[in-house]
């Protein structure tokens, strides 16, 4: 998959399914989605299910961390790392 397409999908899901429900319209790829309130404790698990279903990866509980999931950029990196395995 093209890197831009993958990133677009991630950004689109976060915008449509998480940010919009919080009334947030714009966020950058590098911005912390926890600090701006886009992702809350339930949002984390919806995001993980989306990544697993869309990219066919398996994300373990120990990988659900701020380092991996804090921004669009870090989420993309996690998916790249997982799909390479």
């Amino acid at each position: 998959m093209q890197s831009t397409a993958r990133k677009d999908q991630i950004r689109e899901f976060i915008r449509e399914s998480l940010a919009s429900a919080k009334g947030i319209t714009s966020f950058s790829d590098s911005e912390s989605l926890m600090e701006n309130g886009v992702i809350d404790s339930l949002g984390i698990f919806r995001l993980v299910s989306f990544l697993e279903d869309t990219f066919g990866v398996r994300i373990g509980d120990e990988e659900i961390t701020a380092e991996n999931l804090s921004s669009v950029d870090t989420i993309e990196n996690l998916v790249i790392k997982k799909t390479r395995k």
Partner: protein
Amino acid sequence: MAYILQQLLSKSAAQFPEKPAVWARGRSISYRELEEQSNQLAHLLRERGVKKGDRVGLYFPKCVESVVSMFGILKAGAVYVPLDPQAPVDRIGYIIANCGIRVLITRGEKRRGLDERTRESLEFCLVIDDARESGNGTGVVPWAMLSAYPGAHAPQVTLTETDLAYILYTSGSTGRPKGVMLSHQNALTFVEWCAATFHITSADRLSNHAPLHFDLSVFDVYNAMEAGATVYLVTEEIALFPATLASFIETQGISVWYSVPSALTLLLLHADLKAEKLSRLRTILFAGEVFPMKYLKQLADLLPGADLYNLYGPTETNVCTYYKVERDRLASMDKLPIGVACENTEVFAVNDQDEMVTRPGESGELYVRGPCVTYGYWADPEKTRKMVVPNRFQRPFEEKMYRTGDLVSLGEDGNYYFLGRRDSMIKSRGYRIELGEIESALLSHPAVREAAAIAIPDDVVGNRIKAIVAAHQPGSIKSGDLQQHCAAKIPKYMLPELIEFRDSLPKTSTGKIDRVQLTQDSVPVAG
């Protein structure tokens, strides 16, 4: 004996000056530093005109400076008001105007995010991070200014236990948050009961999971200070990630934990908890919502050595009843009691005939009396008269009691059991939510004709919120637009996760929106 909260800190600072008092974001502050910096802050506030009883707002993500600020404000004789840093600026503006906050402790970026009218209503902002905008006439005072003030003693202010200490804003039925006024005595009644009941010592490490505008924080911060223990503030980068949170508990050696049950449920489901890693955890307190029995049983099995307590109480009384989980009864229990009254507190249920409930099996609305009961709501005498009422069960002298609005039953075992709310207030993730407040936000959109918010029970978070909306012109508005419209008016935790559009809403025979029908339509039938 302490009769005002800051005495808890001063006593421990004399006894354990070099011990860490507060830890947050990898940084800690000793008791001596906390005592000195809060003295300096109190002098700064007094010199700049803050007087006894003035409200000072705290508006930044929690960090070491949060606790310095709480004590500095109290030592100036003022009242602190913690504001949710993630709340919409509209709501923050409303609270600032409602309780007349003229001084705000904040971060530069938070201050810039306020609307102009709110910013101009402030005398000054004490900014904890950057000093770029400070200077004469800007209304911005940098935190670094603290060092210019004396740290050895607090300013001289006469206070008694009946003075206000803080105001906590909670969800209100009229569509606006209401400010619960809490005195030093209100807080200390709870803190002293906790100290004696949970035997907190200077060797303990307490977590602070709840946000500071949530009354669960009162225990974490003040009971740590009371005992000379250390409180570890759990910030979002830790709290949102169960595995990270579990390793935080292990690494920091947390011994006493207090949170909403859903935080514990998420840990159980997603953190791969190992008993040996959490061996320091000796006491787990939970409050704010009903803990689903299946997860409580899992927690009890996982940590056989820990004492588990279910605490109950609205912000207006802090905790007023408690139940220590009886491990030998747990397997056969299908409902968790809220227990019995805390010391120095009386609770009783009043039935529809306005009689006190005395026999097991009977139910009624729970009332609370004692020094834990709030004076009422800031600048809202009408709401105060409705909820903080004269004690009609005893006449010789004037006394107030608080009607919780919660229906309870008295069990055979002498414990009270929570049955539900009298009105439409629900809990989600431990937050109190008035469905009416969500509905008024939805209805304020010009395209919306009818709206109802309903709660869908959920094992993990308590309730999920769904809205059903009928537009004036069907199809004229999209779910995302409506969510954004609401987001400017109500906090994120109140936003409906799902919005369903219908041409019209079902009505009851009296012409009211049929919420029972809507709820039945939305909740999958069990079995």
